[in-house]
């Protein structure tokens, strides 16, 4: 039996929407975490850019690893449980089926999606810091530019969710942005 195409595995496991949800949820977590970190540096006294970059990179990496491991552990358990339930209903062993292949591969795919979202989004957010560190002239404080990038990413994730949910994209983008701005406000109050 040839290996089943990914599309088929997603279909039989009903995982397409789950992966999309994981990507957005953990991507939002990643963007908001980095935004908070950047805000913390911004209200501190003259942080060294290399320290900021290293901290952001370490946080991004930790979010990625956390995303992969947590999603894999929970998804693998869920998939095993679902497969066992289906086998009981079918009164047969499904180990040669696409369902069994999906139960093995889908947790990895979901985990990679869950981990890559905050990692990739984090890398995008710290691009202005890298550019500034590399000597590229910046039109404003690189920390503020990185925070602006994070806000744009968060707004975009909100827009993406709005389009999925069939609600006005600008409104859902604003909702996500409002959460980010409220977070910044709280950090400013605490700082």
């Amino acid at each position, binding site marked *: 039996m040839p290996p*089943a195409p990914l599309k088929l595995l997603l279909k*039989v496991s009903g995982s397409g929407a789950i992966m999309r949800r994981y990507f957005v949820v953990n991507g939002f977590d990643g963007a908001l975490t980095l935004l908070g970190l950047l805000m913390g540096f911004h209200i501190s006294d003259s942080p060294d850019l290399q320290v900021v970059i290293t901290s952001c990179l370490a946080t991004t990496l930790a979010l990625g690893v956390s995303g992969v491991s947590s999603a894999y552990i929970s998804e693998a358990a869920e998939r095993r449980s679902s497969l066992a339930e*289906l086998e009981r*209903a079918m009164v*047969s062993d499904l180990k040669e*089926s*696409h369902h069994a292949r999906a139960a093995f591969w889908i947790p990895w795919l979901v985990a990679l999606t869950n981990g890559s979202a905050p990692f990739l989004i984090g890398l995008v957010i710290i691009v202005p810091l890298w550019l500034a560190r590399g000597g590229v002239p910046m039109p404003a404080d690189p920390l503020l530019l990185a925070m602006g990038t994070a806000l744009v990413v968060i707004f975009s994730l909100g827009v993406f969710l709005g389009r999925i949910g069939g609600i006005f994209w600008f409104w859902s983008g604003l909702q996500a942005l409002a959460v980010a701005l409220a977070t910044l406000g709280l950090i400013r109050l605490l700082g």
Partner: protein
Amino acid sequence: MASVRHLTLDVLKPHQPNALEFAQALAGLGPGYEVRVRVTEVDEHTETLLVTIDGEALDFERINEAIEANGGSLHSIDEVVVHSE
């Protein structure tokens, strides 16, 4: 040498892949395979199908493998037409 021209199978399968995708998977096994699927019973996790397949030379082993690959289980062979050549 005899070739199988027609099969009627009683199959139990999970809801996914659905009946259309299941029929397409079986029809893709060989040229000229004509597949009809009728859902006769639906439960919480499974559905029972009456599958009829027509063709010049049906490969039963491959059909059974495809049914199992799609999570199905062959309960019985209800009708067969075999042509002697």
